[in-house]
């Protein structure tokens, strides 16, 4: 029986089919799919992240109220489970009578946008430095590791707070500031991977046929570190959400009345002793989102590069 005669759907039980299974080992892609399907963390974490992202995208259409609309006659209403909760405001209202659920949903848009864009910037900066340093080695690599050392020595929170106080807390400014302060992990990992790959035969082959450095970096090295970059990016998005929430909480991030999760905690702080839900809900949202992203990121690592565990 020739291989071309085999109809995958027509397997019959018996010794013959076992032989066929051995003859056709699962492709790497299929293996990846199998690892993904049996990975609880990836499914739960990834599912939660996708749900929140979908809600954030749909917010303008599904949010019950305008997040900026103040109603001073409806201040500090309890959430639905509270004593004076009402169906009109599922998560209650804040001190200015703004619907808390709507503010939380719009806050998700702000926090997630900053997180995604800042991670993209830091991935580009970090991976470029790491790949270039790892591939060329020598002085260039010395310069890259010197930059990494400088970056690691600067206290990121203090530097970003003072930069925000200089340039202001617009969303764009936050994206760039956080992006340029979180690239070290990408650089460290891509650098060490590129160093190992540099001496591989396929790189030597590309050099032998006269490929330019740019071409080797982009078409030979980059695809081989892409999985690592994706994994780090997914984990760094959680870090960025935390940084953004601290900055906004301290009043040097997203500026009111624009809602962001950290800012909601700050706004609720003055009322925390008698309306604790105002800080519990946004804080819990940050916490759950970060856990979900971490689970999904760890899952992605197990699926994409299982050799990179530990």
């Amino acid at each position, binding site marked *: 029986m020739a291989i071309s005669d085999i109809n995958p759907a027509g397997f019959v039980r018996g010794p013959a089919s076992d032989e066929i299974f051995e003859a056709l080992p699962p492709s790497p892609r299929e293996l990846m799919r199998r690892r993904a399907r049996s990975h609880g963390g990836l499914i739960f974490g990834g599912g939660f992240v996708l749900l929140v992202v979908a809600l954030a995208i749909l917010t303008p259409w599904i949010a019950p109220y305008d997040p900026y609309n103040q109603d001073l006659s409806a201040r500090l209403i309890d959430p639905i489970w509270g004593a004076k909760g009402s169906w009109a405001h599922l998560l209650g209202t804040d001190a200015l009578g703004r619907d808390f659920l709507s503010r939380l949903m719009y806050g998700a848009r702000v926090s997630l946008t900053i997180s995604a864009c800042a991670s993209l910037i830091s991935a580009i900066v970090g991976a470029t430095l790491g790949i270039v340093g790892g591939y060329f080695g020598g002085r260039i690599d010395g310069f890259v590791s010197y930059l990494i050392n*400088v970056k690691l020595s600067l*206290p990121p929170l203090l530097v970003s707070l*003072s930069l925000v*106080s200089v340039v202001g807390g617009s969303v764009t400014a936050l994206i760039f500031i956080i992006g340029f302060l979180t690239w070290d992990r990408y650089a460290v990992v891509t650098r060490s991977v590129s160093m190992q790959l540099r001496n591989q035969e396929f790189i030597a082959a590309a050099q032998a046929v006269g490929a330019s450095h740019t071409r080797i970096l982009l078409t030979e090295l980059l695809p081989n570190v892409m999985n690592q970059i994706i994994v780090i990016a997914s984990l760094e998005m959680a870090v960025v959400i935390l940084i953004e929430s601290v900055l906004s909480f301290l009043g040097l991030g997203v500026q009111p009345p624009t809602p962001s999760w950290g800012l909601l905690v700050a706004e609720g702080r003055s009322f*925390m002793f008698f309306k604790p839900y105002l800080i519990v809900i946004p*804080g819990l949202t940050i916490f759950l989102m970060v856990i979900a992203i971490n689970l999904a990121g760890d899952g992605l690592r197990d699926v994409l590069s299982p050799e990179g565990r530990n």
Partner: protein
Amino acid sequence: MLRFVLRRLQIALLVAITVSIVGFSLLRASGDIALVLAGENAKPEEVVRISHAYGLDKPLYMQYLDWGAKALSGDLGRSLFTNEPVTGLILDRLPVTIYVAVPALVISLLIAVPLGVLAATRPNTWIDRAALSFAVTGSALPSFWLALMLIYLFGVMLRWLPISGSDSWWHFVMPWITVAIGVIPLQMRLTRTGMLDVLSSDFIRTARAKGLSAASVMFKHALRNAILPVVSVAAVSLGFLLGNSLVVESVFALNGVGMLAYQSILRLDFPVVQSIIVFISFCYIFLTLMSDVINAKLDPRIGLR
């Protein structure tokens, strides 16, 4: 060994100089200091006079060298807000920050290191998984929120602990918990990775192969080597603690360096901010340098690399 230390020192110095340049540029990027010093209603000639008196009309690299020379002699300039010397301001607040950081570091290491070692000796068992989920949970808690939740739980509902101020050591319990929970995940992961490295090394395989008991392999051979990652973990997390002291100090109203940094940022008092950034960076550079040297001392192979 000596060559290693010298090379490491050279890198540390280079990084330190760069960091100080970054701090200096931040100060200059914050705006025209002469204008701030002269006040809002100052006449233009007044601004020129002040900018000359403070050397602000010199080229930037000259200003940096002036500033650097003074900083080396302990003069970090004066606060734009209180006009006090910055060095004194920082030294006054340092004890509170240390009183938060050091006990928190000890507590966190006492929890994280045994957990990390335990997780590494039993990889992929429930202990390992429990330790890792603990780390994931801990690292997902925003520290400012954790602090507020502790205040609500222990300060308001249970009324066990005072919620702000620094009058007695009771006031520091919640800050310690907050800070410790913030660094335990990092410390645990690093300890676990370091321990896994040790356990997979040749001398452990040899020890096992010659039939030593598991306990003997663990305590005589592995743990002694696992001290190396712990040294770097302690150094890195102390640097991290200092950099993030701002959050915990501002939530618990502790008058430390972090609080000073926060207040100075809010009132745009950049000489203070810049000095604190450079100071904390130098602490970090010094700590990592020390941990590398200690590790090279403990494991001579590192010095040969």
